[in-house]
């Protein structure tokens, strides 16, 4: 739960976003996007992301944009953020971090 931002996140990513867990998370996120076109996803408890996980993030982003909405990710840990920077995802995704 992010106490500093105005609205609570719609989805809290937890644990790993890898080949095994990605399908479920993808389903969850896409279902949420069916109901609400502006999604906030909190990644505070995301420990690890693999290639499969990156595809989920990209798909979530693209789906939201296609609906004229947005998909904002919050609170990636430094480790995961490093992966996002390495792969160019920091320029693609909408990111928000809790105010310093």
């Amino acid at each position, binding site marked *: 739960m992010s106490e*500093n931002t105005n609205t609570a996140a719609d989805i809290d990513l937890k644990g790993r976003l*890898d*080949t095994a867990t990605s399908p479920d998370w993808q389903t969850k996120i896409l279902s949420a996007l069916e109901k609400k076109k502006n999604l906030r996803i909190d990644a505070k*408890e995301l*420990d690890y992301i*693999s*290639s*499969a996980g*990156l*595809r989920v993030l*990209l798909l979530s982003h*693209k789906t939201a944009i296609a609906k004229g909405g947005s998909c904002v990710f919050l609170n990636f*840990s*430094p*480790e995961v953020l*490093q*992966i996002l920077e*390495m*792969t*160019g995802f920091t*320029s*693609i995704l909408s990111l928000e971090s*809790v105010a*310093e």
Partner: protein
Amino acid sequence: MDIGSLQDDRLKIAAAVKEDADLRQVADILGSLYDITPVRSPEELRRLYTRGQADLVLIDAALWASQTLPLVRELAERPRAKAPIVLIAGRRDDEAEAAAFEAGACDVIDKPIRKNVFLQRIQHHLRLSAYRESLTDQVKELEDSIVQSFAELVECRDRNTGGHIARTSKYVALIGMELQDRGQFAEELTDGELAIIVRAAPLHDIGKIGISDLILLKPGKLDDDEFAVMKSHSQIGADLLREIYRRTPTQDYLKYAIAIAESHHEKFDGTGYPNRIKGDDIPVSARIMAVADVYDALVADRVYRKAMSHEQAYGIITEGKGTAFDPRVVEAFAATADVISAVAQKKD
């Protein structure tokens, strides 16, 4: 320089302490300055540690007994280990204390805990840790900046659309991560090694610095002689990097830079250059860069032809499976092609 750039500006101490009375004592001494998080299990500690949610870890050696040191070692050996680990020992035991330090603890504090000394030591460790982290970050940034600058200097001579270096590094990261997902090249593509390969990737064309402008900037296709000169950029780059590595053998990423610069134009079937090596003789990093480099070249405008579409480039890469490129690398590329295309389209 701020020591605590965290949410509340208060540093967080994870305290794995056996007795409630001891926990209260720790909270008494440190609680006004730091946020104390009690930890009950090794799993919980691991989670806090890996999520970067602890700036310092206090472990009462009595709590997990013989499991303590292996846990300390495990945490301290993590490549991004940051938080200092401080043990609290029940009684003085020189051997156990030495073992604790050897395992990676940065301090051992004896009971009974002496209030003022304890506080000073914790503050001291936090300060040191912050300085070290800041320094490590700065050095790494400097290194990356230098590598990137040199690579871009060479690139700008080439007058290719800027960004080739940044993009190909990202494709290498993406293809590399996909290969990891598939369990391919597990030995050569650990997380640590992939990160180093990505850092080294910008230097793949540095040898172009030795190529005459007449050839480098020729507006048309190169004839055989000119192409022969152009091909020498692989060897020039590798030789240059070898010399630098000889002078600064501590820079591990240079090893990979040499491999990538030298062999990124080699072909899986042995018909590439400069050495006509084939198959598994080609370093994995170079096999990955080969795909990344060709893809980016195809989807970019060139002086002698317009940019191809993603689909066309995809087709050409997959056609080269087994001949120009390692089939496994092509498969990983194919699986992650959507993402690569998204990165390719980003103009910054």
